[in-house]
C-alpha cells in the first residue's frame, strides 16, 4: 500500500528518508562548524562566516524540509518576493541610520572608500 503510494505519487512528491537524514546531518555539521569557528579570531570575518553558514542551513531547510525544491513556480516567486522585501527593509533602514553622521560638507560630496568602509565595517 505504502509502496504503491510512493511510486504513483498520489500523495504529492515524497522525499526519500535518506535525503532527509542527509539534510539533517548537514544541518548538524553546520551547527557544530559555526559554534567551533566562533572561537577562532577571524576579525570581522567571524560575522560573515556565521551568517553564511546560517544562510546555507536556511536554504537546506527551505528546499528539502519545506519541499520548496518540488514546489510550483508561483510559490517560489512568493518566497523570493518575501526575501526581497526583507532585503529592502534591512538595506534602506541601514542606509538611513548608518549615514546620518556623514558630514554635509564638500568632502562628503566625493565619498571615498576611506569614508564608506568604516561605516560598513561597523556592521560586522
Amino acid at each position, binding site marked *: 500500500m*505504502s509502496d504503491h503510494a510512493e511510486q504513483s505519487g498520489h500523495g504529492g512528491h*515524497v522525499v526519500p528518508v535518506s535525503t532527509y537524514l542527509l539534510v539533517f546531518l548537514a544541518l548538524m555539521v553546520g551547527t557544530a562548524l559555526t559554534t567551533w569557528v566562533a572561537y577562532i579570531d577571524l576579525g570581522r570575518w567571524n560575522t560573515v562566516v556565521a551568517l553564511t553558514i546560517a544562510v546555507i542551513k536556511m536554504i537546506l531547510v527551505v528546499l528539502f524540509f519545506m519541499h520548496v525544491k518540488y514546489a510550483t513556480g508561483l510559490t517560489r516567486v512568493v518566497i523570493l518576493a518575501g526575501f526581497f522585501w526583507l532585503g529592502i527593509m534591512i538595506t534602506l533602514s541601514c542606509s538611513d541610520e548608518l549615514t546620518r553622521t556623514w558630514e554635509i560638507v564638500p568632502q562628503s560630496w566625493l565619498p571615498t572608500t576611506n569614508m564608506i568602509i568604516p561605516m560598513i565595517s*561597523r556592521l560586522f
Partner: protein
Amino acid sequence: MSDLAHGAHPQGFAHQFEDIEQQRDAGRLGMWVFLVTEILFFGGMFTSYTIYRALHLESFIQGSHQLVVKYGATNTAVLILSSLTMALAIRAAQTGKKKGTIIFWLILTMILGATFIGIKLRFEWFRDYQEGLIPGVQWFYNGPHAPGVRMFMCFYFFMTGLHAIHMVVGLGLLTVLVVMTARNKFSSEYYTPLEVSGLYWHFVDIVWIFLFPLLYLIGGRYQ
C-alpha cells in the same frame, strides 16, 4: 486508495478545486504568503538588531558574553532534530502509513519542542533572572557598558521571547494535528493541515538558526 479507484473524491477534497494536487498547491501557497508576513515580522527585529549592534558594537559584544553558548547550541540541535521528525510525520502521511506512525512522529516533535522551551526556561531565562540580567525585572549588571548591555538583553528577551511564543503556538498546532490524525482525518491524498503546520514549524526553526549566531556567537567569543 480504494475510493479513488471507484472515481470518488478523496476525503478532505474541496469541490472548488480541479483536483487534490491543485488543492495541496493552493494550501502551500497560502501558508507561504502567511510565512512571508512572518519573515517581515521577525525581519523588523533583525533590522533593528543590526542597526543597534552597528551603533553600539562594544556593548553588544559584552552583552553576548552574558549568554551561554552550550545551551544555545544544544537548543539548535534539538530544534533541527524536531524539524526532521516533523518532516518524517508528513512523509508517513504521504506514504499512507498507519495513523500510529504519524502520531509517533508528531509526539516526538512535540517532546523535542517542549525540550527546547524547557532548556530555554530552566537553564537560560531562569539563570538570567538569578544573575540579574533581565532589564526591568531583575537587573544587577554592573560591568562595563552597562546601558548598552541592558539594551542587548532587551533585544535578547524580545527576540527569543517572540520565538518561544511561536514555539508554544507550534505545540498547540501539533496537539490539534495529533487529535485530527487519531480521528482519521488524513490520508495519503489529503494531509494539508499536516503539511502547512510543518511549514510553520520549519520556519520557526529557521528563525532560531539565525538567532543563535546573531545573539550567541558573533560577540567575539575568541577573546
